[in-house]
C-alpha cells in the first residue's frame, strides 16, 4: 500500500514500474532508444519530403510567366519586368483562364536570389484577382483573414514567418522602411508559403521601386506605368487544357517572356532536389537499420537472458507453444511500451530542436501520423519476430541444457 504522504513523483515512478513488467525496464529503454532514432530520422525525412512535394505541387498548379531579360530576378517567376501589355497578350491566348500579376521580392536583399524555395519572400498579389494556382485556390488562414480588395499597408504572413518573429494578427511588420499591419497568419503548409509575407500588389510595387534605383531611372525615362511593375504572373488554364501544351503556346504567341512549362519545371525541381531525395532515402534506411538493429538486438538479448527460466518452465510442463505464446505476449507488451517511449523521446527531441531553429524560420522535424504509425508497427513486428526467433532457438535445447546454459 502506498503511503498517503509519498511524494507525487515517487508515486508516479511506482505506478510506472507496476505497468512495465518486472525485469524489463532496460529492455524497454533499449527499444525506446532504437525507436527514437528511427522516428527522429524519419521525421526529418518526412519534413524534406513534404517540402519537396509542396514545391512540386505548386509548380504543377500554375504556369509561371516572367519578363525576359533580367536574369534570375526574384521569386518563383525568376524573371524580369513583365509589363501590362504582355499580361494582356497572355490572357488572350486560347486556353488561358486567368492571369494573376505578381511581384515577388526577397525579403532580405543580402541573401541569394537563387534559393527561392527556402527564402523568405515578399509576395505582392492583387486581392481582387482570383488565385491562379489550381492547387492553392486559397491559402489556409489560421488566424485573422486573407487580403481583400482595396487593402493597403497590410500583410498576411506564413506560419514560419510569423513564428520566427512572434507575429500575430494586429502586429506591425516593418519591410524596407514601410510598416505593414499583420491582418492574417497562414496555416502551416510545410512548403514555400510558410515563409511568405503576402502584401497587396500595389504595396509590393512600391517596395520594389524603393529597393531598385534602376527601376526609378527606367520610369523617369517615360513609357512605363505602375501596371507594368510585375516580376511575373501566374497563369491558370481552362478545364480540359494540357498545361504543358498551353505553356508552349504562350511562349510561341507572346514575344519577350519566359514561360515555365509546369511538367518541365516539376522535372527540373525533382532533379535539383535529387540530392535531398537521396539524403532522405539514406536517412530512412539508416533509421530502419539503426532502430531495427537496436530493437531486435534488445529483444533477442532479453529472451536469451531468460534461457534458464525457459528450461525451468519446460521442466514444469511448458510446451514449445506455451513458451512461444508467453514470449510473444511479453514481447508485444514490451515492444509497445518501448516504442511508445521512443516516440515520446523523439517528439521531445524534435520539439526542443525545432524550438531553437524556428527563430531562423525553420522546422526540421515532421512527426506525421503515418510515420508514428509505421514506427509503432515496425517496432512491434520486429519485436515479435526477434522474440519468436530467439524462442525457437531456445526451445531446440533440452530443458537440462537450457538450465545449464542459463546458469
Amino acid at each position: 500500500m502506498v503511503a498517503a504522504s509519498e511524494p507525487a513523483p515517487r508515486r508516479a515512478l511506482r505506478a510506472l514500474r507496476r505497468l512495465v513488467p518486472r525485469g524489463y525496464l532496460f529492455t524497454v529503454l533499449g527499444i525506446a532508444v532504437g525507436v527514437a532514432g528511427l522516428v527522429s530520422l524519419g521525421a526529418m525525412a518526412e519534413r524534406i519530403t513534404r517540402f519537396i512535394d509542396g514545391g512540386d505541387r505548386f509548380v504543377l498548379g500554375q504556369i509561371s510567366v516572367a519578363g525576359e531579360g533580367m536574369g534570375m530576378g526574384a521569386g518563383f517567376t525568376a524573371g524580369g519586368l513583365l509589363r501590362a501589355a504582355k499580361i494582356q497578350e497572355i490572357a488572350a491566348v486560347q486556353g488561358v483562364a486567368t492571369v494573376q500579376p505578381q511581384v515577388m521580392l526577397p525579403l532580405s536583399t543580402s541573401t541569394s536570389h537563387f534559393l527561392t524555395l527556402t527564402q523568405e519572400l515578399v509576395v505582392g498579389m492583387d486581392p481582387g484577382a482570383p488565385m491562379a494556382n489550381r492547387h492553392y485556390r486559397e491559402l489556409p488562414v489560421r488566424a485573422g483573414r486573407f487580403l481583400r480588395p482595396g487593402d493597403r499597408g497590410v500583410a498576411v504572413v506564413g506560419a514560419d514567418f510569423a513564428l520566427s518573429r512572434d507575429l500575430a494578427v494586429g502586429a506591425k511588420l516593418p519591410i524596407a522602411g514601410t510598416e505593414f499591419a499583420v491582418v492574417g497568419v497562414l496555416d502551416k503548409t510545410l512548403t514555400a508559403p510558410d515563409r511568405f509575407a503576402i502584401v497587396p500588389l500595389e504595396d509590393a510595387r512600391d517596395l520594389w521601386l524603393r529597393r531598385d534605383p534602376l527601376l526609378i531611372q527606367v520610369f523617369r525615362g517615360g513609357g512605363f506605368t505602375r501596371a507594368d511593375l510585375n516580376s511575373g504572373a501566374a497563369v491558370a488554364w481552362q478545364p480540359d487544357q494540357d498545361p504543358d501544351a498551353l505553356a508552349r503556346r504562350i511562349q510561341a504567341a507572346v514575344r519577350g517572356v519566359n514561360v515555365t512549362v509546369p511538367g518541365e519545371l516539376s522535372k527540373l525541381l525533382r532533379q535539383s532536389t535529387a540530392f535531398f531525395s537521396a539524403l532522405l532515402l539514406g536517412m530512412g534506411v539508416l533509421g530502419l537499420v539503426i532502430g531495427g538493429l537496436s530493437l531486435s538486438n534488445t529483444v533477442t538479448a532479453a529472451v536469451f537472458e531468460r534461457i534458464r527460466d525457459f528450461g525451468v518452465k519446460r521442466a514444469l510442463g511448458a510446451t514449445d507453444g506455451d513458451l512461444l505464446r508467453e514470449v510473444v505476449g511479453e514481447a508485444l507488451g514490451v515492444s509497445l511500451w518501448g516504442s511508445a517511449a521512443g516516440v515520446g523521446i523523439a517528439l521531445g527531441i524534435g520539439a526542443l530542436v525545432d524550438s531553437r531553429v524556428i527563430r531562423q524560420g525553420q522546422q526540421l522535424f515532421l512527426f506525421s501520423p503515418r510515420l508514428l504509425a509505421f514506427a509503432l508497427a515496425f517496432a512491434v513486428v520486429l519485436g515479435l519476430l526477434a522474440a519468436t526467433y530467439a524462442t525457437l532457438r531456445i526451445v531446440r535445447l533440452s530443458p537440462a541444457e537450457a538450465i545449464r546454459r542459463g546458469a
Partner: protein
Amino acid sequence: MRVSAKGVGKSYRGAGAEPVRVLEGIDLEAGDGEIVAVVGASGSGKSTLLNILGLLEPLDTGEVWFGPERVSHLPRRAQARVRGRAIGYVFQSFLLIERLTALDNVALAARYVARDQATARREAVEWMERLGVAHRREHFPSQLSGGEQQRVAFCRAVLNRPPLLLADEPTGNLDDEHARVILSELGAQARERGTTVLLVTHRAEAAATADRSVRLVAGRLAPPAGATGPVA
C-alpha cells in the same frame, strides 16, 4: 509410480572432440513410495541420470518407463505433459524465477497442467505455510535466504502432487537444519502419498534417509555393496 530405466546410455559431444560417454547400460527401478538415493563421485553421471529419468535430457540408448508407459520415446509435446503432470523437481540451485514472487513461483507449477489457478494458488499458500515460508510469499527470490528458496522450490515441486519426485542434491546449498527439513519432507511424500523419490546426493546423511542406494562409478552402476540399505 514405478520408474524403470533400461539400458540407458548417454554421451556428450564437444565441438570436434571425441564423444564422452557419461552413462552406459544403466538399469534401475524404483517402486511406489520408495526413496532411492543415487550416490557417486563428482562426474560419475548422477545428475545426467536424473535428468534423463526426468525427461529433461534425451538419452542415446535405452528406455525409460513410467509404469506401463515408455516415456523416453514420446514426442516432445507429450513429454512436456508428462513432466508437468507426473514429475516434481528439486534442484540444488533452487532454480526459482527471479522476476516472480515466491508465491508465483510455486503457483507456476500449475500453469502448464490445466489446473484451476485459484485452487492452485490456495494450495500453494497451504504448502508454503506447511514449509514455513508463507510469510515470504510476496518476496522475490533474491530477497530470500537459501533455506527459504529451497523450501519454496520444494513447494513448487509438490504442488501438483506428482507421483515422482526427483531431487538433485537438494541439500547441497543448505545448512544442516534446513537440509533436515527438506529430507524430512521428501520422506513424508514417499510415506504419506506413495510418491517415488529419486535422490541424487553426495551427503551420507541424505543417502541414509533413502530406502536403498545405488552407486554410480564412471557412468555405470556399481555392483551392490551387500544387501539393500543406506550407503555409508
